């Protein structure tokens, strides 16, 4: 089966290298958690995959489509949901979904059905006629997620999808992501909540200074560290050199 995402020799430099010769492969149908400390290059990498940022060099393939040579074809296959929801305050969730469906050319009846399904699933159906300007952070995040899913993307890229969500909303989002992967979609997410990666991800990649430090299943990472009982937090802090003891 074609891999969902293949990144080879990816480079991006702003003032300093943000992504440095990154190689990464995400298999089709898996939930891949990309972890790293602040400034590690996670968001820059994902923005390049989403076509929002041009790499200095390297290869990005999405389901075999060269995203740099044919960005439009690649964009049809993916959805990008950043940590700050991309919403229009003066549109209602339903109007927002109508707009996003139009951007991806979703057939009218399909878009209508999917909008209702997504808004109901995320607990927003009763709010479908209210403008987003009055929404809480969690409601905005869920509306943006519905927008990302309206065209049924094969690859869903989520940057910090659970930040600012209360327990109930976080559960709804996690359930939705699990359902998407069960249905065959591929999900790549970044998160600082390591328990989420530990419980949900099929594979975990840890990135620092724009390079992939390690990747694999949680058991693989434990085996690499030689500690079968280590938590992901222990492994992460150890690998990224952030495990200095805090003063008592």
């Amino acid at each position, binding site marked *: 089966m074609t891999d969902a995402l293949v990144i080879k020799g990816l480079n991006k430099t702003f003032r300093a290298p943000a992504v440095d010769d990154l190689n990464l492969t995400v298999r089709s149908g898996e939930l891949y958690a990309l972890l790293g400390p602040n400034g590690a290059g996670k968001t820059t990498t994902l923005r390049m995959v989403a076509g*929002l940022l041009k790499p200095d060099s390297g290869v990005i393939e999405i389901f075999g489509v060269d995203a740099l040579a044919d960005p439009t074809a690649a964009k049809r296959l993916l959805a990008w949901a950043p940590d700050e929801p*991309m*919403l*229009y305050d003066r549109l209602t969730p339903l109007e927002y979904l*109508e707009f996003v469906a139009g*951007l*991806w*050319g979703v057939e009218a009846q399909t878009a209508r059905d999917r909008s209702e399904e997504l808004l109901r699933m995320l607990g927003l159906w009763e709010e479908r*006629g209210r403008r987003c300007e009055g929404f809480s952070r969690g409601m905005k995040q869920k509306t943006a997620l519905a927008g990302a899913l309206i065209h049924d993307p094969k690859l869903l890229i989520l940057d910090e999808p659970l930040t600012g969500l209360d327990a109930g909303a976080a559960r709804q989002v996690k359930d939705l992501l699990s359902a998407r992967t069960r249905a065959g979609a591929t999900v790549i997410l970044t998160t600082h909540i390591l328990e989420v990666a530990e419980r949900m991800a099929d594979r975990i990649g840890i990135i620092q200074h724009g390079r992939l430090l390690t990747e694999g299943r949680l058991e693989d990472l434990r085996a690499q560290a030689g500690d079968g009982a280590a938590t992901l937090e222990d492994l992460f802090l150890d690998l990224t050199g952030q495990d200095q003891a805090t003063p008592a």
Partner: protein
Amino acid sequence: MRPGSTLWLLAHEMRLGWRGVLARRGENRRSGWVALISVALVTLLAGVPLGLMMRRIEITVTPTGIVLADVVLAVIFSLMLSQTVAAAADVLYDRGDLDLLFSSPISPRKVLTVRFAAIALNLFLVFSAFLGPFLVPIALIAHPPWLAAFGVLAVIAVAATACGLVLAMAMFAAIGPRRTRTIAQVLSALIGAGFFLVTQARTLFGHAAGSVWSDLMAAAPAIPLPPAAALPLKALMGDPGALAILLAAAVAMFACVNVWLGGRFAADSAAAGGAEASAVKARTRPVAFTGGAFAATVRKELRLMARDAALMSQVMLRVLYLLPLAFVLLRNAGARETLALPGGAAALTFVAGQVAASLSWITVSAEDAPDLIACAPTPVSTFRQAKLAAAFMPVAILLTPILAVLTMLSPGVGLAATAGCVATALANGLINIWYQRPAKRAEFRRRRGSSWFSTLAELLVGAAIATATGLAAAGQPWAVIPALVAGVLLLAIRRTDAQIAQALRAAAR
């Protein structure tokens, strides 16, 4: 200054305001220089000759002078009031540091006093900057006591601020927090345009000669005037007693409003803070889900425009200027007054271009979700075309009946005006694409206009096309010259897609 005192708080506001001015100057240093040079030019070319002329004229307190002064000051008051109504509503809504201030032990009344004193000060400075190039040379060359006019401006600013506050809070009580903001924006546009419409009344109702002013001056000696009516003229001429009375009255009015409404301010402001979230009724209108990226973008832009009260008030202001113009044009066309038609067609073209420019500037540059657009599998040209189409639709709806009637009454003029309106709208739309400045929609309330360069380009190209329209409507072959000038101007400032992308990247750095 004691921390927490009114003066201390006022100094804090002024420091923030000044830093805002410095920051804006840093962003666009050239526009500051353009403004300074313009003031110097107006002073030299208009103010100084006016001062020299006034040296020979002795103004005395006559009924005509009193009426003239009162009317001019009433006009300035109405213009200031149009600003304060909107500003007063903004104070209730722009949260900024209000939550911090209200959670502190400082009384809400003090916060209100300082916020509105800042509005009055801002009004005074803006109007002084406009009138200064005339007033200062007149005072220095001809009548030094007339510097007291700045004191009268301060009086009007304080009074207008107090009235604006009362109006805004009355609306708040009558129609609720959310609608107050919308109505205040629209009301400010109406008050601003009111004076223009009054001066056009004679023309609209068919009296071509004379003016409202000449009628007023002729009737002035017969108007029974109370003694207080002379105070503004006396104050303008430097009578310290008259100025002191007016100043005391304005300050008393401001203080009374503070005492009367200060207690309610915190409550209203708190209500306004929640209004954004709660007051929009959930209305589930059917949505289309049809037509692809172009149609979806057009629908989105039209919805956002219709829901933007500040934008609609700006557009309405321009429409208010356009309607009398169109009315006169159609009346002249109906009466076969062919001499007046070309100028009207040119003016209609110019104003139509300005309305199209305002709307296309917003639709092209205001984008709350640029990343969403960027990661959609749709060519950027589709978005641009859709955004321009959305901007032109309201203009087309407004102009189509006017141009249709004009074409029926005078086919040549109608066709020329139609071609001119289409050309100027397209030209201004293209300028806004070439010189777009993407930002979130909320920021457009602060930035309001586009860059000085694109504004200037729109004015020049619009004027050239309007001139071509006027000449074409008059059947003059010379129309081709201004049309060519407009074309050359557009070619000179044109940007390719690569240049636009490069400019956007540079701006984002």
